C-alpha cells in the first residue's frame, strides 16, 4: 500500500467495522477507540486503519446529505426566527 493510496478492496472490507469502533457514531460517556486500538482489534497495522477511517468518514454519506443540510439549516433558522422574534412573515414555506 502506498502512503497515499489505500487498496479499495481493503477499504471495502473493513470500513464499516472501523466506523463502528471509532468516534463517528458516538454514545455519551463511551469514547471510541483510537486507530491503534482498532488496529489491534482487527489485526491490521495502525497506518491502514487511519487511512480506512479517513476515507470512511468522508464516504459515510453522499453529497445528497449536504443538500439536505443546506435546506435543514435554512428552514430551522427561519422557523426559530418566526417564533422567537415574533415574525410570522419569516416562517418558511
Amino acid at each position, binding site marked *: 500500500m502506498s502512503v*497515499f*493510496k*489505500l487498496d*479499495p478492496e481493503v477499504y471495502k472490507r473493513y470500513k464499516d467495522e472501523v466506523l463502528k469502533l471509532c468516534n463517528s457514531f458516538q454514545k455519551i460517556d463511551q469514547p471510541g477507540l483510537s486507530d491503534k486500538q482498532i488496529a489491534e482489534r482487527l489485526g491490521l497495522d495502525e497506518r491502514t486503519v487511519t*487511512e480506512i477511517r*479517513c*476515507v470512511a468518514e*468522508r*464516504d459515510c454519506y453522499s453529497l445528497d446529505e449536504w443538500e439536505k443540510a443546506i435546506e435543514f439549516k435554512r428552514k430551522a433558522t427561519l422557523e426559530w426566527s418566526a417564533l422567537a422574534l415574533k415574525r410570522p412573515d419569516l416562517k418558511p414555506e
Partner: protein
Amino acid sequence: MADLPSGATTQLKTFALKSGATVCGVADAAAFNARAPEKQRPDDLLPGARSVVVVGGAQPREGDWAATSPWVMQTMGTTERIQGVGRRLAQYIESEFGYYALYVPPGTASGDTPFLSLMLAAELAGLGSKSLAGPVLNRDHGFMYWSAVITTAPFEADAAEENPACPAPACREMWDRDRTTPCLATCPGDNGGCLSGKLENGRAVRTFYDAARCNTRVHTHWVGGFQKVLEETLNEPDRDKRKMLLYGDFFTRSLWAITYSSTNIAQCFECMRVCPAAHGLKEMK
C-alpha cells in the same frame, strides 16, 4: 518632507515591543540592493523606500521544542502572531510620523518567491545572522519568525550583527571531533536530507541546500502536496482509487493545513530542534 523628530527610531522600537515583538531593528533600504535580486528590493515594492523596519517574535516556546508530539509544531508553527505586529507598525508609522509605510506581505509573490526576503531583512536590520541550516538566528532568542515594513521614513539603521550565533561552541567542538554538526547530522544532504556544509575559520559555510526536498518537509501538507495528489487523481483511471486519494489521510490533512494556517506555516523543525543556538537563552524549570 519634514525630518523625523528626534528619538523617533527609539519611539518606534518601543511601540513595536509593546505591540508584541520580541526584537525590532531597522535596515537601510539601499543595503538590499547588493544582495537581493531585482523585483525583491524595498524600492521595487515602495518607490522612495528609505528604511525597512523588521520585527521578530512569536517564536516556538521552550515547551514547543520539548514537546514529543510532532503535531504541536506542525500545526502551531505559524507566523500569524508576528504578522499582526507588522501590520500595526505600518499603520503606526503612517499615522504617527506621516511617512508612507508598506507592510511586506508574507507568503509568496509567485511560485516559491517571496515579495521580499524577510530573512535578509532580519540580517540587515542587525537582528540575526544566517545559520548553517538556513534560518536566521538571533543571538539571544534563537529561531524566530519575522515581519517587515518598508517605509519612506529615514529611521536610523542598525548595524549588522558582528558575532553570529552560528556556529555555537558545542557545534565547533562537534565539528573538530566528528567533522559534522547537529543540523548536518540530522538532515545530511548526501544521505536523503537537505543540507551539506562545513565550518571554516570559525564560520559556517553551507555548500549544498536542496530547497525542493526541504519544501517537502517544511510544507509536507500544503499546496505542493495538494497539487501532486490532484495530478495523480486525474491520471488514475480507477474510480475507487480516485476516492482513496481524495478522501485519504494525506489529502485531508493537506486541506486542513491550507485552510487553517493563515499565510505561513512550517511543518519541519528538525534542523532547529537540534541546534544549540536556536532555542534562546532562557533557563526553564
